[in-house]
C-alpha cells in the first residue's frame, strides 16, 4: 500500500536531497529531580539503519528519543547529528522528523494542511508545497484523503498521515515513538511490514522506540536494549537473542524468557526451544541432561509450551520447554522425562552482576 511516486528522494524541486545522517550520543544523561531517566548513554547510529530502542516502561527510551528530537534537553552530554553538535538547538534546526504515539495530527486542519505544515514553517512557496504534499501522500497511498479531517480517519489512515507529514520534509533522521501501539493486532503486523519496506526504500536513518520485543526483533537492523536509563546491549536481533549480554536482556527478549538455573555464583541459561527431549538433541557438541518433571502443558497450535521442574524436589527450579507443534510426542503432566540441552546452546552468567561470562560466538 505504500506506493512510491516516480523517482527518488532527490526528485522534487531540485532542492538538496535529504542527507542520510548519523546520530551520535555522547555521555547523555537526563535527570528529573533525583530520578536518572537516562544515565550516561553513549550510542552511535549507522547511516540508513533502522535502530530500535527496546525496553520496559520507564527505561528511558522515550526520553532518549525526545532528546534526539530536541523537545527535551539533556542534563549533560552531547548529541551530534551529521557530525554537527545539536545539543541546545531547537528541533527545527536539526532536520529531524518525528511520529508520536498518538500521531499528534492537528485536528482543526485537513490532511493536506497537516502534511503541508512542516513546509509552511520553512517558507516553501505554495506550488512547491502542493507538489511535495502530493508526493508524500502518494508514498503512503493517502491521496484520496487529502481533504478530510483527522477525526474522519481510521487509526491506520491517521498513522499514514503522520508518516507522510514526517517524510514530506525529507529529514536526515526519522524518529518514531511506538507508532504502532494504537493499532489493532492484525493491522499492526501489516503496518510493521510496510514500515520496514518503506524505510528500506527511502534509506533514512530511523530510530524507533518500542516496548514490544517481537516488534523490535522484526523491525530492527540493530536493537538497543535499555533498562533503568542505561544501555544493556546493542546488537543485531540475532546477537541479542542468542548472545544476550546479561540476564536482563536474556529474560526480556524472547517469550517465554530464557530459562535460568543457578548454581553457586553462576547462572546457566538456555532458551526454551533448545530444551528438548534428550533423544532429539544434537549430540555433536555434547549435551547436558536434566530430569524434567512436567507440571503443565499449553498447546498453542504452532508450538507447545511445557512447564515443569528440574532438579531435586527441594531445589526444584521452574523451566519451560518449547516444542514445535508438529512434534506430536506425547507429554503428560506429572511424569518425569529426560530432557537435554546441547552444550553449544548454554549461556553462563555471573549471578551477582548478571553479566554473561562465556566467551561468545566462536
Amino acid at each position: 500500500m505504500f506506493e512510491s511516486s516516480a523517482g527518488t528522494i532527490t526528485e522534487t524541486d531540485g532542492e538538496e536531497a535529504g542527507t542520510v545522517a548519523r546520530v551520535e550520543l555522547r555521555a547523555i544523561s537526563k535527570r528529573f529531580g533525583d530520578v536518572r531517566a537516562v544515565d550516561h548513554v553513549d550510542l552511535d547510529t549507522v547511516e540508513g539503519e533502522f535502530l530500535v530502542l527496546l525496553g520496559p516502561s520507564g527505561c528511558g527510551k522515550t526520553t532518549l528519543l525526545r532528546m534526539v528530537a530536541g523537545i527535551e534537553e539533556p542534563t549533560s552530554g552531547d548529541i551530534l547529528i551529521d557530525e554537527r553538535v545539536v545539543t541546545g538547538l531547537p528541533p527545527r534546526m536539526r532536520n529531524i522528523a518525528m511520529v508520536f504515539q498518538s500521531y499528534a495530527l492537528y485536528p482543526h486542519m485537513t490532511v493536506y494542511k497537516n502534511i503541508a505544515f512542516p513546509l509552511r514553517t520553512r517558507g516553501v512557496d505554495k506550488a512547491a508545497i502542493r507538489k511535495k504534499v502530493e508526493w508524500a501522500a502518494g508514498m503512503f497511498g493517502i491521496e484520496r484523503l487529502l481533504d478530510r479531517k483527522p477525526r474522519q480517519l481510521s487509526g491506520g489512515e491517521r498513522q499514514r498521515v503522520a508518516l507522510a507529514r514526517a517524510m514530506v520534509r525529507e529529514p536526515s533522521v526519522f524518529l518514531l515513538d511506538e507508532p504502532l501501539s494504537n493499532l489493532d493486532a492484525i493491522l499492526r503486523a501489516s503496518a510493521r511490514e510496510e514500515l520496514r519496506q518503506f524505510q528500506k526504500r527511502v534509506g533514512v536513518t530511523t530510530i524507533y522506540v518500542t516496548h514490544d520485543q517481537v516488534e523490535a526483533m522484526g523491525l530492527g537492523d540493530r536493537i538497543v536494549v535499555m533498562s533503568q536509563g542505561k544501555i544493556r546491549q546493542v546488537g543485531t536481533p540475532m546477537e541479542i537473542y542468542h548472545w544476550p549480554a546479561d540476564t536482563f536482556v536474556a529474560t526480556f527478549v524472547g517469550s517465554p524468557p530464557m530459562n535460568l538455573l543457578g548454581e553457586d555464583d553462576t547462572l546457566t541459561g538456555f532458551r526454551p526451544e533448545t530444551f528438548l527431549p534428550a533423544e532429539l538433541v544434537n549430540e555433536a557438541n555434547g549435551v547436558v541432561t536434566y530430569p524434567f518433571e512436567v507440571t503443565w502443558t499449553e498447546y498453542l497450535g504452532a508450538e507447545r509450551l511445557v512447564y515443569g521442574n528440574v532438579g531435586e524436589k527441594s531445589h526444584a527450579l521452574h523451566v519451560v520447554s518449547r516444542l514445535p507443534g508438529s512434534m506430536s510426542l506425547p507429554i503428560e503432566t506429572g511424569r518425569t522425562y529426560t530432557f537435554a540441552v546441547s552444550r553449544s546452546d548454554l549461556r553462563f552468567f555471573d549471578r551477582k552482576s548478571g553479566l554473561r561470562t562465556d566467551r561468545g560466538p566462536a
Partner: protein
Amino acid sequence: MEQVAKAGIRDQSGLLAKLMIAPAILYVTAMIGFPFILAILYSLSDITTGDPTLRLVGMRNFRDILADSVFRLSLKNTFFFAIVSQVLVILLSRVVATALMKEFRGKWLARFLIMLPWTAPIALGTIGWLWMLDSIFSPFDWVFRWLGLLGTPGALLGPQTNLYWLGVPSLAMASVIIVHIWRILPLATVIQLAGLSSIPKDLLEAAEVDGATPWRRTLEITIPLTLPIVSIAFLFGLVFTFTDVTVVYVLTRGGPVHSTQVLSTWTFFKGIEGGDLAQGAAISLFLFPVLAGVAAMMLRMARKSEVV
C-alpha cells in the same frame, strides 16, 4: 397464584424524570416566563406605578423611546461598554491563563488574588471602586501625584490635583469599563485555563518538531483550538455586562449627563423611579433579541469545542 411484583416509583424512569424536572420547569415558568409575558404586556400598555390598570395601546411606547435621545444613547453605551470591556477581558484573561499554566512560586497566591473579584458581591465591590475613584480622595490620583504625573504644571496627566474619574464623561465611561473588566476577569480566566489545558501536549510538541516558532504555534495551533472556548467566555461576559445594573448605578447613576447610561439602568430610572412602567418594560425588551442571539451563538460554540 403468581405474585406480580409491582414496580415502585423508583423504577419508572419515565415518570420519575418528569417529576424531577417539574420543580425546575415550575421555577422557570413562574420566575422567568411569567414576568417575561408581563413585560411584553406592559410594554404594549400605558400602565404606570400610580395607575396599575392594563390598557393596551399598541406600539406607542416603542415609538416614544426610539424618539428619546437618552434611550438611543443608552443603547449605544450598552453595546460599547459590553464589547470594549469583553474584548479587553479576553486579551487579559488569556495572558493571565497562560501565566497560570506554568508552575512558579506563589502561584497559589496569584490564583487566589485573581479569583477574589468574583467572590465579592458585586454591589460591595463596586462601592469599593466608588471610593477608589473618588473625586478628592482617590488613591489612584495620590499615586499619580506622587509620581509627578499629576498636579504640577506641565504634568503628563494635567495640572489639576484630581482626575474626576466619575465626573468627566470620558473618564466615567472608562471607569465603568474598568470595573466591568475587574469583575469578569476571574470567570474568563478560569474558562481560558480550561481551554488551554485541553490542548494535548504532544500537538504543540509536534508543531515544534515540524519547525514552528512559538509565535506560529500560538497563532496556528493554540488560538484556533481554543477559539470555541474563548468564544464562550466572550459571550458569557457579554451577557453579564449587557444585563448589569449595579456597576453603572453605584458608580455614576448613569451620569454625568447620561454619558454612562445603559439600557438596564435607564429601564430602572424610567420604569421604577420615574413610574412609567410601560416605557420601562419597552426599554428592557430591547435587549431580548440581542441576548437571544448571543445565547444561540454560545450553544453553537459549545458544540464545536471538541479537541480530538
